[in-house]
C-alpha cells in the first residue's frame, strides 16, 4: 500500500485516504472530434511498465485532485503537482531522467 503526499494540503497519508483516477494529462475530445482522437481520449492508455503520470484525489482528506509521477515497477514516487497542470513540471521530468536515464521522456 502506497504512502502519498498530497500537494494541496501537505498531508502524507496511506493510500486508503486517496482514490486513484487513472492516467493524467489526457486531452478531452468532444463533439466534432475524429474517431481516432475520441478513441485515444476514451480508451487508449499508456499503461507503462515504469514511469507513469497519474491522477489521484485526496478523497478522505482535502478532497482535491492532484497529479503524480510514479514508477509502476519500483513504486518510486518522483513527485506530485497540482491537477491544474497541462504537462509534467520540468523539475519532475529532470528528477526522473536523473533516476531513470533510459526513460524516453513524457510524450
Amino acid at each position, binding site marked *: *500500500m*502506497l*504512502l502519498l503526499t498530497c500537494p494541496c494540503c501537505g498531508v502524507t497519508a*496511506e493510500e486508503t485516504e486517496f*482514490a486513484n*483516477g487513472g492516467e493524467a494529462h489526457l486531452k*478531452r*475530445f*468532444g*463533439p*466534432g*472530434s475524429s474517431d481516432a482522437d*475520441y478513441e485515444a*481520449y*476514451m480508451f487508449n492508455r499508456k499503461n507503462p511498465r515504469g514511469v507513469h503520470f497519474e*491522477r489521484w*484525489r485526496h*478523497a478522505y482528506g482535502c*478532497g*482535491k*485532485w492532484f497529479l503524480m509521477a510514479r*514508477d509502476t515497477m*519500483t*513504486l*518510486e*514516487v518522483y513527485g506530485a503537482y497540482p*491537477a*491544474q497542470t497541462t504537462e509534467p513540471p520540468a523539475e519532475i521530468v529532470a528528477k526522473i531522467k536523473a*533516476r531513470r536515464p533510459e526513460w524516453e521522456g513524457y510524450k
Partner: protein
Amino acid sequence: MSYRLATGGRLIDRSRPLDFTFNGKTLRGFAGDTLAAALLGAGQTLVGRSFKYHRPRGIVASGAEEPNALVGMGEGQRFEPNQRTTTTELFSGLKAVSQNHWPSLDFDIGAVNAKLWRFFPAGFYYKMFIHPRSFWKHVYEPIVRQSAGLGKAPDAETRDADRYEQFYAHCDVLVAGGGIAGLTAARAAAAEGKRVIVIEQAAHWGGRAVVDGAEVEGQPAAGWVEAVLGDLHANPAVTVLNRTMAAGVHDHGYVLAYQRVADHEPGADKPRHRLWRVRAGHVIAATGAIERPLSFAGNDLPGVMLAAAVRDYVVNWAVSPGKRVVVVTNNDDAYRTALALHAAGVAVPVIIDARTEPRGALVEQARAAGLRVADGMAVRSVKGGKAVTGVELCRFDSDGGAVAETIACDAVAMSGGWSPVVHLWSHCGGKLLWDEAGAFFRPDPSRPPLGRDGQGFVTCTGAANGDLGDTDAAPMMPVWMMPAKADYLLRAKMWLDPQNDVKVSDVQLAAKEGYASVEHTKRYTTLGMATDQGKLSNINGLAILSDALGQPIPQTGTTTFRPPYTPISLGAIAGEARGPIFQPLRRTPMHAWHEANGAHWEPVGQWRRPYCYPRDGESHGHAVSREITQVRGSVGLLDASTLGKLLVTGPDAAKFLDMLYTNMMSTLKPGKCRYGLMCNENGFLSDDGVVARLDDQTFLCHTTSGGADRIHAWMEDWLQCEWWDWKVHVVNLTEEYAQIAVVGPNARKVLEKLGGDIDLSKEAFPFMDWREGRLGKFRARVFRISFSGELSYEIAVPASEGQAFWDALMQAGAEFGMMPYGTEALHVMRAEKGFIMIGDETDGTVIPQDLGLDWAVSKKKPDFLGKRGMERPAMTSADRWKLVGLETLDGSVLADGALAPLPGKNVNGQQETQGRVTSTYFSPTLGRGIAMGLVHRGPERMGEVIAFQTESGGRVEARIVDPCFYDKAGEKQNV
C-alpha cells in the same frame, strides 16, 4: 521419553504449577512454559499425526518454525484449530486436542496410508483423481476431505467470543526481533533521536544469546538485555512490544505487526489480538536464523528434534526430550546442545558428525567433557514407531547399505546448519545471495526492497544477515542427504516437509518427471505449502531439487516469500469491523421511527430504507399493495432523505450544468424544477434527478440515493481537472435536509392543515415549481414534483427537525388514513407511470435514447458530457434495444431480468435474444403484472407478442405496449 529435569529452567516458576488438558487428560506444567515445553515435560512426546500418511509426530522445534505440533485449542466459541504449541504460552485450564487422526492419536486408521506409501507419490492427487471426472465431486472429494486437512474448522454457527483491534502507528525505525542484534539496532536508532518501535514475537527477549549464555560487550547476555531494555523502555520515543510478530513488510514501509495481547491471559477483558499497521521510515530485520533439519531415514519420528530446540527446552524450561539423546550434525553449534544436555545430566551416547576430523573450540570442549564424537558418520536410520528407540549409524560417504553400529537412544538432536530468516527482506522484493560457506541464502545488500524515494528501506542485521557469530568454529559442511549416497528405500523415509509429508524421494521424482522450476515443484509436491510455509523444509528441498537437476542451488533459486510470516488470526485482520460496525450503516433522521414502526429494510448503498411497513400478519406483498392503494386513493408519506442534494453555485454554474446534464439547464427559470439526465463520456446514463434553480447563479441538483457521493466527486473532477477556470462551487447538502414526499390526491389538504406562509394552490404553486417558506412551524423548501403520477410534494426541512416534521405530517394526515410507504411501493408506482430507474433500466450500456428520453437530450447544445459518445454509429443504429412496456397475456408477473429468446446462436455461440425485462412488478392498481424491458427495435413493434423465459425454464407471452400504464395524460399529478 521426554521428562522434566529436577533443576534449572530459566523461564519457569516451579512454585506456580499449572494444570491443563491434552485430549482430555490432565497434565501439569509450570508458569513460564510454552504448551510444547509443558507437553514434553509431562512426557507427552507424541502430539499429532501427519497430513497424508497420518504418521505419528512429535515436537521438532521451539518456536514459530514448528511444523508438527499443532493442536486444536479452546472450546465452543473460542475453539481454534492449528495452534502452534511451541509459541503458545501455558495457562491454567488450557484445553488442547491433537489433530488429524481417527479414531485416536495412539491408534489411527489412516496410518495405513503410511504402509501404502508407494501408492502416494508426489503429485498423487493430480495423478489419481483425474478419472473418471464424475467421481471427483461425489467420491474422491468427500474422501479426501475426511482424511486430509489439518484440524477442524469451527462450526459455521460459531461466533468468535473475543474482541480484536488494529492500531495505526508511525515511526522512523521499526526493529523486528528482540535478540542481541535487534536490541543493539534499536539502541543505536534511539541514540540518534529516532522514533523507534522494537518488536519481539516471543514473550521473552534476548534470542539465542541468553540461552547459550553468551557474553555481550563484556557482560552476560541476560544482564545486557535487561539493561538495554530498561533504557529503551525509559525512552519516550521508543515503543517496546513483546508477543508481537512482524507479519509482513509491504510497499513504502508498511509493516503489519501482530500483537498477541491476551492469548496468555484467557478471560482478561482485553482485545485478544491487535494488528499494528505501522508506517516505518526504515525496517531493521533482526529476525535471526532457523536451524535446518537433516534428511535421514526416520527423521520424522517423535523424539527427533532440532538441536538448538533441544537446548532451548533444557535451558529455558528444564525439559529434556529423552534420557539418552544422540546428537547428529554437520556443524559446530550442535555441540552446544550436547554440552547443555551433558551439563543437565542427560546421557549423550554419541555426537555423530558428518564432517571428518572436525576441529573447533566446541568440538574440543565436547571431547574434553568425555563425549564421544563419531566423525565422518551419518544416521542411517532412526529406529522406532511412536517413539525413538535407537539409531543406526553408517559411513556418511556411503549408500547406507552397511550398518556400522546401532546405538540405543530415546531422542535425536539434529542440526543441518542455519538459514537466516530473510522473509522481511524478501516480502517486498529484496533479493538474495547464496552464501557458499554457510550454505544459506542471505540478503544481497546491493538489491534491497525499494521505498517510495527509490532507496532501500530494509536492512538485515545479525543472524538474519548471515552473521552467525561463530568465528572460532570449524567450517560447516553442507549435508542435504544422509548418508550422502542413500539408496531409494532410505530416501523414501527422509522427510523434507513433515507437515505436508513430502520426502526426498518425492522431490527427486518431481525432477525426474520434468519439474524444473522450484515454484512448480513446490506446488506439485506441496513442499513448503503447509502452515509453517516451509521454514524448515524449503532450503533442504531446493538443494535436493538442484542436485536432481544437476545445477547449483542459486540457479534453482527460492520460492517467493509471502506474508504473513506465521499465520495471523482472521479476527485481527477484521479488527473492530464486526457485528454492528462491520460496515457503516447510514441512517436518515427518521430511521428510529421506521424501525419502531416495523419497517422491513432494503439496503441502498450503505443506507437502509424501508422497503415496506408490514402490519401484524401481513406479507410484504400485501403491505406493498396496501401502501400503494392508500397513496393512489388518499395520501402517503415517503422518507426520501437519501436522495442526493448538491448545491451548484457560482457565475458559471449554469454553463457547468449544461455540460453535465444532457438537457439544457441554463434556460431553467428560478423557482422552477426540471428533470435531468447525466451521462458519462461514453454517452451511457449514469444518474438522473430533478434540478431546482434557486437563483440566477444557484442550482440544487438532486441525484439518486446511491449517486450523491459519486456525482459530487464527478462534478469536482471536472471542475478541478478540466474547467478549473470556471467559477463554480459544489457543496454536498445531502444530509442537511430530511426530505419527505407527501403523495396522493389528499396531499395538498394535509399540507394546508399544517398552515404556514406558502400558497399551495394549483394556480400559485404549479407542477414542477418549488417554494421556500414555512409549513406550520417548520422552515421548508417544497418541490412540486412527482415520481408516482399523483399530486405530490417533496419537502425538505433541516435534518434535526425531520422527525418532528414527520410526526406533524402523520398527525395532520390522520383523517385521510395517512401511512408511510416504502421503496417497493415507490418502485411499483413509478413503473406504473413508466418512469425509469437508474440501475434497473440502465446497466452502464444504455443511452438516453434507448429509453425514449430523446426529449431530455438537448440538440441545441454544442457540447455536453456524453454527446460525442452518443454520435457513434452503434449508438445511433436503429437496431438498438429500446424501452417498451410489457403486458403478459395471462396477467402474470414476468421474472426480473428474463430474456426474450430467438432461434439460433449469436457470434459468441450463445442463445440469440431480442430483449430483456428491466423492471417487473405486480400492479395492485391494475390488478395484473406489468413490466418494462429493452427490446430490439421495441417502439416500432407496439402490439406484437413475444415470449420471455420463466424462472422454471418455460415461456410466457407478453405484448409490447407503451411503458406508461397509468394516467398517460398526467392529469392526476397536475391538479
